[in-house]
């Protein structure tokens, strides 16, 4: 493609009246005017490309920023926090000189367009964030949301997404240890494909994304740059699909996990030899993002020669090279005398590496093409000084009516037979059914350090073979709760993930989040977002678990219909010795079952109300974070001191769901007695938060009760592990065979 004349900075200054396609690139008029004001002239095509992708919602967080600040302002003091928000991923001290980095991101829109590649490159992207911090990736997790389980499009999207996650992760040799699969019609056309990853490093290995030291070289390494995902960041994340004409659809990014594996090994080797000053992975907005962020986080000056970027397609224009989202690329800043060694390591791993520029004294990011200067900007204006919107938000009118439509008033089962039928229906419903058909397509155990994986409450990885030090991660989010009350819903997601980590015996340390919402231009959605962020920040402060980073995904809506507000919260915990973990499965007949916490009549947003009545209304369960903390302490102590042999947190589906899962996983039934003061229905189906069910060996009964009593945690004996059935005395008995058929047959029946 010959472009005459080249749109250089000089040319732009001389031709102020040339019209640029800023609107097509997703910029608003005032944003374009701001660019002109910053530069004091019209931008060149290349500059416009950079500003438009970097100022897109996806990269600039322009609608969410004003709210996200709370995560910093309300951050609890935490000695564990080594690197906080703003870097590629947060880093947490887990003791013994080890640090762990983890983060959750969304790859929602690409996964709807092309499920396999969208999900695969989602895994690839989050793994590169982890490498960029200096850590070796050790595990991935995938919280997923799809449309109705029986909708034909779910059969297109889900298998592709699952195969993409499995394919990429398995090729990289990373175990997939957790996540969720949720079905709800609100995600039809807007599936949520969130991907999380964990990496481990020694404290001294932490690396940051900044380019300092004039004369240091900027090296682009990894895959060649092609036309992948051009404009993906601005076009896909900024507009709804209705607006996206086929011609605007960017080329789908295709992942190559084997290239990524080489990138991991090559990067870690370069780190080990201390060759790297600063590093950044190339994700959304590609080189535009990497160069402007590296430069602005350092001293500010950088000169790049775009002609040196290795291309897969020689016809690409400089704008396209800057916007390309080709996968499996990274950018490193290396001292001149170490460049040769860096390139040698890249060659050893068969990774293409090219010096494309250097750090300069000034504070300008200058990019050259065919000898002409096509970009001359202050990198901070590109990377950090994007527009910030105080979007109007307002509690939607329908919120009161929704909350008044009390689920506690729904007709309840009138007989034992009806109760039994509803239990079977619940445990066999798509959201409550076993997800093993899906999770078995992922490798859980590769690398040999997986201690727990789905369907356990948290995924757990051994970090140190000698001491048994390990980390646990759980991700949770309940869009139904958040729809009823976004503030409480976000706290419930936090509480559940916190509880899940504690239930397995690990101490919760830090939080990452992926906030999935509809269009921020709708005040109702913006209110949901503001409330959820406020709830999460308040909750994290109270629990002492800081948010270390995360991701916001907006515009998850088709036409007027937004998804349920879906804040997905990941909690990371640490356990001194993974041998002390607590599994979900019942271990031994005769062990006593205790219910920890208070059970109230709370059915708003419950699985029961969805499965039996297809209803969403009322208020979500009450949150008591002090109670969550106490429950967590008890569960961790009990695990460390060997007082409990299994434990399961109570969340959606209530007690009966938890007991059935523990029974099926252990291959042992349970006899339950409805405690005084509760009716059988509330006992089984209530979704009150702050609860767990534990199995206590008889020899530990006194000690366990004393501990709970001394700490003031309500504890109720509800039965015993025994036999081949789950029996609720005086009500019904269901054989494990029947329960298994209901629980494990649903998903294969729908999707296989």
């Amino acid at each position, binding site marked *: 493609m010959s472009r005459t004349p080249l749109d250089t900075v000089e040319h732009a200054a001389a031709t102020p009246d040339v019209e640029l396609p800023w609107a097509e690139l997703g910029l608003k008029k005032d944003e374009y005017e701001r660019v002109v004001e910053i530069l004091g002239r019209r931008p060149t095509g290349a500059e416009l490309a950079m500003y438009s992708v970097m100022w897109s919602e996806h990269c600039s967080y322009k609608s969410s920023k004003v709210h996200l600040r709370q995560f910093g302002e309300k951050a609890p003091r935490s000695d564990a926090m080594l690197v906080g928000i703003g870097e590629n991923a947060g880093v947490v001290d887990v003791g013994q000189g080890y640090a762990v980095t983890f983060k959750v991101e969304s790859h929602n829109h690409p996964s709807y367009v*092309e499920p396999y590649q969208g999900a695969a490159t989602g895994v690839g992207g989050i793994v590169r964030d982890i490498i960029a911090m200096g850590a070796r990736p050790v595990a991935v997790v995938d919280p997923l949301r799809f449309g109705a389980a029986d909708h034909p499009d779910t059969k297109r999207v889900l298998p592709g997404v699952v195969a993409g996650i499995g394919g990429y992760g398995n090729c990289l040799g990373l175990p997939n240890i957790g996540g969720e699969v949720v079905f709800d019609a609100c995600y039809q056309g807007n599936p949520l494909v969130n991907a999380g990853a964990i990496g481990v490093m020694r404290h001294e290995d932490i690396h940051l994304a900044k380019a300092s030291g004039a004369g240091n070289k900027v090296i682009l390494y990894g895959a060649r740059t*092609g036309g992948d995902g051009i404009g993906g960041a601005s076009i896909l994340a900024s507009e709804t699909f209705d607006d996206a004409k086929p011609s605007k659809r960017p*080329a789908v990014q*295709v992942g190559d996990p084997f*290239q990524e594996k080489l990138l991991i090994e090559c990067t870690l080797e370069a780190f080990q030899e201390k060759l790297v000053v600063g590093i950044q992975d190339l994700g959304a907005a590609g080189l535009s993002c990497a160069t402007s962020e590296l430069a602005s986080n350092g001293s500010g000056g950088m000169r790049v020669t775009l002609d040196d970027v290795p291309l897969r397609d020689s016809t690409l224009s400089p704008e396209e090279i800057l916007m390309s989202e080709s996968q499996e690329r990274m950018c490193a800043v290396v001292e001149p005398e170490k460049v040769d060694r860096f390139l040698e390591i890249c060659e050893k791993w068969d990774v293409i590496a090219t010096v494309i520029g250097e750090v300069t004294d000034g504070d300008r990011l200058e990019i050259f093409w065919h000898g002409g200067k096509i970009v001359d900007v202050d990198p901070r204006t590109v990377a950090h000084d994007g527009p910030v919107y105080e979007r109007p938000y307002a509690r939607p009118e329908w919120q009161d009516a929704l909350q008044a439509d009390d689920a506690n008033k729904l007709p309840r089962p009138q007989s034992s037979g009806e109760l039994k039928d509803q239990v079977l229906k619940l445990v066999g419903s798509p959201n409550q059914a076993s997800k093993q058909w899906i999770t078995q397509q992922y490798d859980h155990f590769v690398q040999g350090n997986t201690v727990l994986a789905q369907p356990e409450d948290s995924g757990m990885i051994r970090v140190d073979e000698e001491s048994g030090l390990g980390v646990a991660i759980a991700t949770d989010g309940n869009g139904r709760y958040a729809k009823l009350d976004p503030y409480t819903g976000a706290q419930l997601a936090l509480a559940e993930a916190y509880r899940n980590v504690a239930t397995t015996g690990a101490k919760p340390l830090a939080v990452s989040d992926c906030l999935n919402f509809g269009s921020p231009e709708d005040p109702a959605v913006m209110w949901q977002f503001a409330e959820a962020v406020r709830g999460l920040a308040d909750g994290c402060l109270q629990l002492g678990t800081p948010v270390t980073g995360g991701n916001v995904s907006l515009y998850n809506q088709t036409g007027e219909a937004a998804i349920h507000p879906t804040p997905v919260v990941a909690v990371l915990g640490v356990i001194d010795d993974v041998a002390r973990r607590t599994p979900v499965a019942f271990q031994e007949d005769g062990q006593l079952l205790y219910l920890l916490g208070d059970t109230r009549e709370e059915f708003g947003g419950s699985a029961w109300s969805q499965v039996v009545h297809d209803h969403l209304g009322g208020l979500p369960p009450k949150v008591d974070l002090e109670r969550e903390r106490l429950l967590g302490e008890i569960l961790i102590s009990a695990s460390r001191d060997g007082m409990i042999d299994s434990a399961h947190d109570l969340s959606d589906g209530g007690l009966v769901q938890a007991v059935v899962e523990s029974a099926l996983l252990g291959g042992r039934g349970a006899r339950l007695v409805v405690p005084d003061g509760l009716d059988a229905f509330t006992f089984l189906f209530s979704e009150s938060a702050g609860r767990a069910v534990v199995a206590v060996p008889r020899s530990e009964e006194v000690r366990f009760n004393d501990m709970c009593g001394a700490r003031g945690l309500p504890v109720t004996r509800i039965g015993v592990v025994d036999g081949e059935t789950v029996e609720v005395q005086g009500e019904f008995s269901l054989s494990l065979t029947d329960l298994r058929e209901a629980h494990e047959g649903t998903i294969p029946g729908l999707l296989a």
Partner: protein
Amino acid sequence: MARVVVDVMLKPEILDPQGQAVQRALPRLGFEGISDVRQGKRFELEVDGPVDDAALARIHDLAESFLANTVIEDFTVRVESEDAVAEAVK
């Protein structure tokens, strides 16, 4: 009976890791002078009855909706003459 061939190729701008792997292997095996390799799929459909416009339209439909993932792939449909089929059998 006639044979219709549907060739499915990744669109030119889409990364083809398999093709790249083949290309990288060539010089190692002593085959020089190949600068790029793209790998695709070929479907051979044996059609009952005449291959008229209606039949071709039907095949175009099935290729578009099933054989090719048009988000990332292009396809072409062409008729192999009956003679060519006979030739191939020999």
